[in-house]
């Protein structure tokens, strides 16, 4: 009887195979082309706890670029989207931003979902004078005390979201809140803004700041249970928020307190049990607006193209790409400083604003003023994505307050 032996993989064979793979996978040398496309670089956390939100933004941007290229692109040039993974790590996000600007020579940077990364990327884009759109990083200083001439933001600030929903939560459930927030730029500013609004209404609170990628919330939920709040505000993001929701229902806490907060996005709602699909929340955009024909048309077209219902993240990305076009067409150039001036005060057309109210970039802080939808989350009704019912709409201006209150002092380059 002979023992079967595996063919030995020799070192020389490995070297030859490695060389062949390297040659085959090497990037082709691209010769100069007559018409250079407009290059948009997107940095987003495709890995890590915010990956579902980032994937939606990338998908929304791809859809928007495809739609734009069918309509002659930007200034008659086709648009090319380059996507890099920031891995939910600030250092990597900074590195990828430099890579897109220095190697790929992108005209515009878009990103990041993670507020801390978006905030850090602003340092690079401002240093290298590149036009930068933040679609989904909410922390206030981006269009507040650290606002920059080259940066525009689409999603709301945390103070806008908190201002839109706090009053409703107090009115419906009571003044005793327990906060669970992530310990980084977004969570800190959001919690502080909620607390400020709550104190103004005479409320009381207890709060826990947890690492951004926390997966076990049991200790914090026990504290919340003991505090007996009227509302538990789950400000965590992405997978962390989903895990917190699952544990909340496993503890049976939904019978003891209401749920609520600033953001509970469609991507996260889909991933939690029906018991946790509850509470009063703010939505920055919602797909079900039957009275707005542009929204109906966009949702139908998006579903046809991707087979999915668009979320707020898809809309952020659409606005980001379309804003590049609008700024370039108004400025008649892809020059960053001129595009920035062109976008200031610019009102989005209805097929981009996708809301009943008007949406425009405020000149003083470069923050998009758009409608905020406050309403109730519930298990799906018919359509699996029909999980939210709009109760009221708060305008962006009302939630944001005056520019002076943001601390932004906009300085344009000479």
């Amino acid at each position, binding site marked *: 009887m002979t023992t079967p032996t595996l063919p030995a993989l020799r*070192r020389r064979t*490995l070297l030859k195979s490695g060389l062949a793979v390297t040659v085959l996978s090497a*990037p082709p040398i691209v010769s100069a082309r007559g018409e250079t496309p407009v290059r948009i670089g997107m940095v987003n956390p*495709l*890995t890590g706890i915010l990956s579902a939100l980032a994937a939606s933004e990338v998908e929304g941007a791809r859809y928007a670029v495809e739609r734009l290229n069918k309509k002659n692109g930007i200034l008659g040039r086709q648009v090319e989207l*380059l996507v*890099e*993974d920031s*891995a939910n*790590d*600030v*250092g990597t996000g*900074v*590195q*990828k931003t*430099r*890579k897109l600007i*220095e*190697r790929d020579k992108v005209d515009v940077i878009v990103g990041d979902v993670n*507020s*801390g990364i978006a*905030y*850090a990327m602003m*340092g*690079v884009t401002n*240093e290298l004078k590149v036009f930068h759109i933040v679609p989904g990083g909410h922390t206030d200083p981006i269009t507040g005390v650290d606002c920059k001439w080259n940066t525009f933001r689409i999603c709301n600030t945390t103070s806008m979201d908190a201002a839109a929903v706090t009053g409703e939560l107090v009115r419906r459930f009571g003044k005793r809140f327990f906060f669970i927030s992530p*310990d*980084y*730029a977004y969570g*800190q500013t959001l919690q502080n803004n909620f607390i400020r609004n709550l104190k103004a209404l005479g409320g009381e609170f207890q709060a826990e700041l947890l*690492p*951004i990628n926390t997966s076990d919330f049991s200790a914090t939920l026990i504290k919340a249970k003991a505090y007996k709040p009227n509302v538990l505000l789950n400000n965590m993001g992405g997978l962390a928020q989903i895990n917190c929701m699952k544990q909340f229902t496993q503890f049976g806490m939904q019978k003891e307190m209401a749920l609520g907060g600033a953001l509970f996005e469609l991507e996260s709602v889909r991933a939690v049990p029906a018991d946790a699909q509850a509470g009063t929340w703010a939505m920055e955009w919602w797909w079900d607006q039957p009275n707005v024909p542009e929204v109906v048309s966009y949702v139908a077209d998006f579903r046809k193209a991707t087979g999915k219902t668009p979320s707020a993240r898809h809309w952020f990305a659409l606005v980001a790409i379309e804003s590049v076009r609008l700024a370039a067409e108004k400025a008649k150039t892809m020059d960053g400083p001129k595009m920035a001036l062109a976008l200031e005060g610019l009102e989005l057309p209805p097929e981009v604003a996708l809301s009943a109210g008007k949406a425009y970039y405020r000149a003083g802080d470069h923050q998009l003023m758009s409608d905020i939808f406050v309403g109730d989350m519930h298990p799906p009704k018919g359509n699996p994505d029909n999980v939210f019912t709009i109760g009221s709409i708060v305008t962006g201006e009302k939630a944001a307050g005056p520019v002076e209150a943001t601390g932004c002092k906009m300085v344009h380059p000479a």
Partner: protein
Amino acid sequence: MNTATTTTTVPMSTTPARPWLTGVIIWALLLSAPIWLPMLGGYTALAGRVLVLGLAAMSFNLLLGFTGVMSFGHAAYFGLGAYGAGLTLKYLAASTPLAILGGVLLGGGLGTLFGLLISQRRGVYFAMVTVAFGQIAFYITYSWDSLTGGYDGLRGFARAPLNLGFTTIDITNNSTAFYYFLLIVFGVVTGLQALLLASPFGRTLVAIRENERRARFLGIPIERHIWMSFSISCCFTALAGAMYALLNNFADPMGLHYSLSGEIVIMTVMGGMRAFWGPLIGAALFVVLQDYISSMTVNWMSFVGMIFVLVVLFFPRGLLGMLQRGVGK
């Protein structure tokens, strides 16, 4: 006469020329990187990243490759160096040399103090304590929000132009000038490391690595040497961290995280821990792979992992160790 000459000539061995040749090739590539790198789809900041992480891995290798002691927490000194530089620039003075000094003092100083506590430990105990210290430093940086910026990192500082008295070099806006500044610092530090390893002190470290018991019987104060090696390694690693902060104009707590410590180990082993330039080769491979493959797939770390496994299985001396051996054949 001719016959006598022929018979007494000994063919020159290639062995003595090899380290010299490796050094020349590496320096030629580094000096000309801003010219050839863009042609291959690279960019200057990438070369800067290779230099910084290569310096960190070479500094770490003083401990692992030349003293035979394993630290799994070297990212702590790298990150502390970055914060030292960033805090100096932000709160003390807009001076790049002072920032580097600040980084070395913070990372190297804490490493020196910590080394005093652990130089008695060996093997897995030494490695575990270094991980523990690394994580303590990580969580302090993460939690001390008011000073370090917490998870979001330290922003609001930028490297300052170099004032040499007779002229000012703009390393703030000129990326090529900054790359050559990094290269000069890299050259000075690697020169110092080479001198150190060629000195009696360096030979003693190798003796400890080869046979600690025999070295002790020879009367060598082992603990003191390990402490000094650890301390020097931490100082150089902190310097690399300070350069990293200057490269990005930014410092974040992930620079102290144990995952970066693991990456430094991977770079060192992949490149070859018994070769002086090995960790630099490992860092170049790691950084380029990360940059290139991460644009194509989010699973880029799987590829690095596979390459690491293949290197360990087939080239236990690392890539440079294998290449030098190949040339010698």
